[in-house]
């Protein structure tokens, strides 16, 4: 893997990496990827299986209210980094052009 690839992955992953981290992950991820490439050998000859693991079936439950109104609200609000009254406050998402 190349430096630019690691930087691209960091952006996709929303993690700011320092120069030294980029270098470290570049060599580490390369050796890990070389190792995991074996996975293609396991199934090289198989073309008709579906990549679905285990028994898959629909599971339903009643769409009912299971807690009292506001039962958890205060606890959840307390965990928020920034609030405005009973609202979660976030940074502006749409930037206006200057």
């Amino acid at each position, binding site marked *: *893997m190349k430096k630019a690839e690691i930087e691209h*992955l960091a952006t996709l992953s929303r*993690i700011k990496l320092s120069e030294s981290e980029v270098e470290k992950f570049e060599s*580490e991820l390369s050796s890990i990827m070389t190792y*995991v490439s074996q996975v293609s050998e*396991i199934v090289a000859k198989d073309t008709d*299986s*579906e990549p679905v693991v285990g028994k898959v079936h629909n599971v339903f439950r009643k769409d009912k209210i299971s807690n009292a109104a506001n039962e958890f609200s205060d606890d959840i609000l307390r965990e928020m980094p920034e609030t405005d009254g009973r609202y979660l406050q976030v940074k502006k*998402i749409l930037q206006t052009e200057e």
Partner: protein
Amino acid sequence: MKTITELREEYIAGTTTPTQVVAEALELIKSKNKEINAFLDIYEESLEQAKEATKLYAEKGSDTPELLGIPVALKNNILLKGQKATGASKILENYTAVYDATVVRKLKEAGAIFVGSTNMDEFAMGGSTENSAFGPTLNPLDTERVPGGSSGGSAAAVAMEAVPVAIGTDTGGSVRQPASFCGVVGFKPTYGAVSRYGLMAMGSSLDQAGPLTKTVGDAELVHNIMSGVDEMDATTINEDTYEQVSVKDKLVFGVPRKFMAEGVDPDVLEAFEKHVELLKTEGHEVVDIDLPLFEQGLAAYYVVMPAEVSSNLARYDGIRYGLSVEGDNLLDVYEKSRAEGFGDEVKRRILLGTHVLSSGYYDAYYTKAQLARVKMREELDSVFSKVDIILTPTAPTPAFKLGEKKEPLSMYKQDIFTVPVNLTGVPAISFPMGTVERDEKSLPVGVQYIGPHGGDARLFAIAKKVYDERL
């Protein structure tokens, strides 16, 4: 610390009380934890709960819930309402759980008393508990060595005699490998046997919670309380999901010799051979089996698991809860919070997962790895038509020294025998099979019994005979 079964008998007989036992547990944790660092939090209020339990025993004796007054330690990636749930990560350092995990609810209903939360590798990623943001846990049997991981704190809590049972989670061996390193019993249930509701998700198609105990009987008792269908986890199974698995007296054990030919310490193999001999003298049949795909399981695991990690950990973004680092705009807040909040191993796996899921690589890696799991299940089905249990060492080595495994790949290879179990969803148990000598110290090593889907009861039945009855 006595076993759950012993404590329960003494509570009912009145020869000891939950108050005494919990007080002793708290005392011991306080005196030993400075060195071992198995516990992240100690719950002082447990003493009050113990007094209540003591009263109940005086009034009702055996007509009380099964775990009443039993002290339990809980891995810190499992939610206990009102207590900190950090996942041993800086990003959740100050996070308080707002609800109980299903396993916690069930243990509470059975009367268990939580005395503290245990240390772990950050978000359960690692095999040594060195990846904790709050410092490593040391192995109580040799403090120069790691307790294994990621449930290292839970294994150490049992090994240091603080509690008769600690709950862990197992995504690729995180209950069984530390059990092996600390000389205790560790159980990974059939996938879906235990609800994942309220567990911090790591690899959702792999994660299961399981007990670490001193006896197989205790592990069975606690597992039976924690398991069952849960409408909050759509992947939980019922008794009809898999075909009935018989419980027999004489079993056929399969040993994947080729799989074990490389990378296992010679004295670990020696202890394993002794165990094989023991099974034969007990009248069981031991045969060689071939599991060619299992040998490549680790490669598939390091595609599937990081892929699920990268998706599951997207929720930690500095917006709704957890660490939030100020930034110029929303993207900047995400990137800085995650940069500061996550440790190296977590970042490594998120990047890896993002890579194998990204356009152009998805089919080459992720689809292939999922296909590999399907093929591995087929291979297992055919093996289990001939044998009742598959036998391997739990880990290729005894506990290693702190700082010894710096290369990520060398750490990953610790899990060679345990990850195929999670990839295929079958149950497995680890219990001590003997000891090996390192630096003039005796270190325990575990044996792993792997059963077919839904074969949890078969594993407990045979492991009780082989292990508990010899204690």
